[in-house]
């Protein structure tokens, strides 16, 4: 059994490339193709948002260190957004893993 939520997240996390949607037969059959693709693409967008927010904050941190930063708040805001986006992504991942573990722990 595949869980598309975890598959999409784990496929995207190491490379930070656009996640490939795992379209298993149960994913399309159970809830309808549009729903599962919608959730997977939402996760994919979320991961991309994490990586872009983090790289933006990184760039601004370098600018702050080299003295090229004109607006201090640009960096602190980007850092706050990167923090929030990362927390959101890890929360979604934890929830997906929890659901997976609960199903795996079911007794026959």
């Amino acid at each position, binding site marked *: 059994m595949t869980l598309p939520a975890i598959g999409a997240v784990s496929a995207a996390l190491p490379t930070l490339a656009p996640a490939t949607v795992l379209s298993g037969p149960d994913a399309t059959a159970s809830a309808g193709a549009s729903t599962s693709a919608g959730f997977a693409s939402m996760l994919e967008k979320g991961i991309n*948002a994490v990586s872009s927010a983090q790289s933006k904050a990184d760039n601004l941190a370098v600018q702050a260190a080299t003295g090229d930063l004109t*607006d201090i*708040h*640009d960096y*602190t*805001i980007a850092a*706050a*957004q990167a923090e*929030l*986006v990362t*927390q*959101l992504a890890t*929360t979604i991942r934890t*929830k997906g893993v929890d659901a997976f573990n609960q199903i795996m722990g079911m007794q026959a």
Partner: protein
Amino acid sequence: MSIFSAITTSGTGLSTFRTWIDVIANNMANINTVKPTSGAAFQAQYVQAEDIAAGAPDQAGGGVRVTALPLSSAEGRLTYQPSNPLADARGYVRLPDIDMAEQMGNLIMAQRAFQANAAVVDRARETYLDAINIGKNH
């Protein structure tokens, strides 16, 4: 509108009011700048800002942006300073037409508005964290 848009919106406010503080700093720094009567006096800068309109009627606006920095009068204050090396044949120079009290008042407004926007960023961050943490304490 994107994710965590309240923080981005407040960021535009921070940028705008930082520009205002920069402009006031420049005006204050040049409050005694003397120019000869043959040219223009030092012209104080002012901030002209406009709202960033919402994309749809049911969406919040996108914040504020600086559109221009208009200048005050080029005539300035004609002042009689015959000992000034820049004085013309009749002994006049141009001083900038800047009201110190007005600039100080603007500075306080800019500072308070900057602080208010920074407070909104903090509050929005807390609120978003609350939303992220829904269901964590089960």
